[in-house]
């Protein structure tokens, strides 16, 4: 039994302020003229503020359509934000170019969800990892070879597989290759975008275990995106809950799970089918489906499905961040 005690430096490694990412689909000129079709705006991420401290594992949890994947991509500069700023190591990297971006790329990496699509099917393992090493600056082929072998060992893959192609590996092994690729850059910050969601239960455990061991050894900072709450509970130091493009609650893991404040968080936690959970009170079943981020509701995004609405204010005004003490923040009118 090991409690997670972390010594945090207190310095935020990466921060996002006011990040918005809208995807706009413009109809063709003809459609606009004839049918007066309007632009379709998908507000994937709408005004998010988040701070990740060095050495911590922040879990980002939410259901489909909540924007967690998009937020992760924006933080890694794979998408340009529609508005807002990204800070990394104290510097504003929102619109930087050239050498600054290369610097950032060396320090921030990502592990994807889909082990089948995240590796180039035409490249052998050696080439996949070589690319990372070359971009880090390892120019000597002999040194690269040695490093590749040691990386493979580290992620638990047999060295003999260095010449194999992705389709010859199982899902779990491919994830290990992705992890090796990210590791090769010796990053400080790793975004793990649902890295175990497509894997079998026993393989999930292996990969989670690997990610945990690597974090213990190298003291990475993780942004761990997932929709499975037990996984989030297990691996995160702090958890942020997202709904429809906005963050609704942020707290340390144990605090969030023992004392959820936002109604959505409560519903989410209550929906988990339980193995080893203590007998709960009646389960909260939300009405309706998870909405799409096209044309979200006015005011608090959750109000159409909320079961403890305060009143009119929920329909009209968006809630702001309310500190509840103990690093616990909630975005809900019930607490203002």
């Amino acid at each position, binding site marked *: 039994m090991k409690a997670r005690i972390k010594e945090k430096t207190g310095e935020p490694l990466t921060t996002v302020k006011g990040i918005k990412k809208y995807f706009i689909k413009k109809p063709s000129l003809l459609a606009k003229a004839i049918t007066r079709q309007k632009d379709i705006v998908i507000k994937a991420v709408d005004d998010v503020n988040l701070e990740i401290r060095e050495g911590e594992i922040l879990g980002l949890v939410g259901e489909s359509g909540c924007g967690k994947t998009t937020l992760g*991509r924006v933080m*890694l500069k*794979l998408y340009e934000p529609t508005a807002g700023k990204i800070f990394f190591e104290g510097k504003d990297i929102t619109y930087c170019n050239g050498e600054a971006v*290369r610097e950032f*790329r*060396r320090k*921030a*990496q*990502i592990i*994807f*969800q*889909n082990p089948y*699509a*995240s*590796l*180039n*099917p*035409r*490249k*052998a393992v050696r080439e996949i990892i070589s*690319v*990372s090493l070359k*971009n880090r600056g390892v120019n*000597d*082929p*002999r040194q690269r*070879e040695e490093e590749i072998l040691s990386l493979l060992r580290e992620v638990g893959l047999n060295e003999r597989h260095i*010449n194999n192609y992705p*389709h*010859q590996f199982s899902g779990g092994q491919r994830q290990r290759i*992705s992890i090796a*690729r990210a590791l090769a*850059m010796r990053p400080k910050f790793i975004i793990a975008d649902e890295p175990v969601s497509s894997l079998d239960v026993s393989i999930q455990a292996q990969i989670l275990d690997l990610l945990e061991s690597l974090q213990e050894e190298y003291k990475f900072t993780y942004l761990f995106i997932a929709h499975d709450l037990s996984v989030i509970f297990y691996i995160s130091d702090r958890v942020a809950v997202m709904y429809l493009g906005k963050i609704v609650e942020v707290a340390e893991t144990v605090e969030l799970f023992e004392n959820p404040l936002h109604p959505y968080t409560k519903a989410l936690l209550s929906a988990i089918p339980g193995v080893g959970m203590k007998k709960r009170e009646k389960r909260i079943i939300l009405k309706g489906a998870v909405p799409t981020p096209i044309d979200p509701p006015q005011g608090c995004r959750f109000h159409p499905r909320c079961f403890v609405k305060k009143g009119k204010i929920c329909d009209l005004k968006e809630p702001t961040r309310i500190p509840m003490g103990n690093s616990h923040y909630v975005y809900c009118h019930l607490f203002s």
Partner: protein
Amino acid sequence: MDEQVQEGMVMNVNLYKVKLKIWLMNFSSFLRDLMAHRAAFLGAVIVLICILAAVLAPRIAPHNPFQADSLRLRLLPPFWARGENAFQILAKLGKEKFSYLLGCDELGRDLLSRIIYGARASLLVGVLAVGISTFVGVSLGAIAGYYRGWFDNVFSRFADLLLAFPYLIFAIFIMAVMGPGFSNLIFALTLKGWVEFFRLVRGEMLSEKTKEYVDAAKVTGQSKFIIIFFEILPNIIHTVIVLATLRMGYMIIMEASLSFLGLGIQPPTPAWGSMVNAGRAYMLNAWWVSTFPGLFMLVLVLSINLLGEGLRDILDPRLKID
């Protein structure tokens, strides 16, 4: 320091050896798949024979394809259809009874030799036209598909415009404007040929660039150029290879059509299309002059198509199973 450098060089060589071994392994498994696919294998063998024949034409052509040995050999029938007359003529010329196997054309030139030399023209046109089309189409398509924007708009519309014309009419028009000749022929064929490759690669690029390994490459800091041509394109190239192979047959037929109309390769250079055209007037009494070139063309194009279809089966699902 010297030792280290030497070791490094040895390491390099070893690495290349390993890469070569891997490449050979891949190629031999590809060959094995090819042999398992009957139709494709047959196609491949015949195409190989044609290529060899074309390359070794001067060695294996039994007679001179450019000039008749004697005008009296005009319209000599193929060896199984010869009558007394034909044997007399041959005897007078001091040739054997079964020389000029497939007969002679209207000017007395050996048909078989002309056909073998004609293969050169056809194959050369096929390879060059397809090769250039592929190069141009793939490059433009990859860039258009990846970047979208004005480049994509301009070239897509341009491609749509070109597609509005039927291929043959367009080629005839170009040839009529520029005059006949080999390089003009290639130009005419490639001017419209690149469009198919452009569209194919652009379409595939649109769907491939959303895949996560592309994001992974971006995150490791690869430049866009390298991503387009060295990460994504290798995954698209198998469909391009299939299309190129199938198109080659089509180019050969186009060349034959243009030569048939007198716009392609000019006499006395042997080209199957013009040979068919020349024999047209004699179809009723000397059918072999038109028929044999046509027959060989049929076999070659059929084989190329079989090979192309087989390649489609071999190259594509292999990436999906396992």
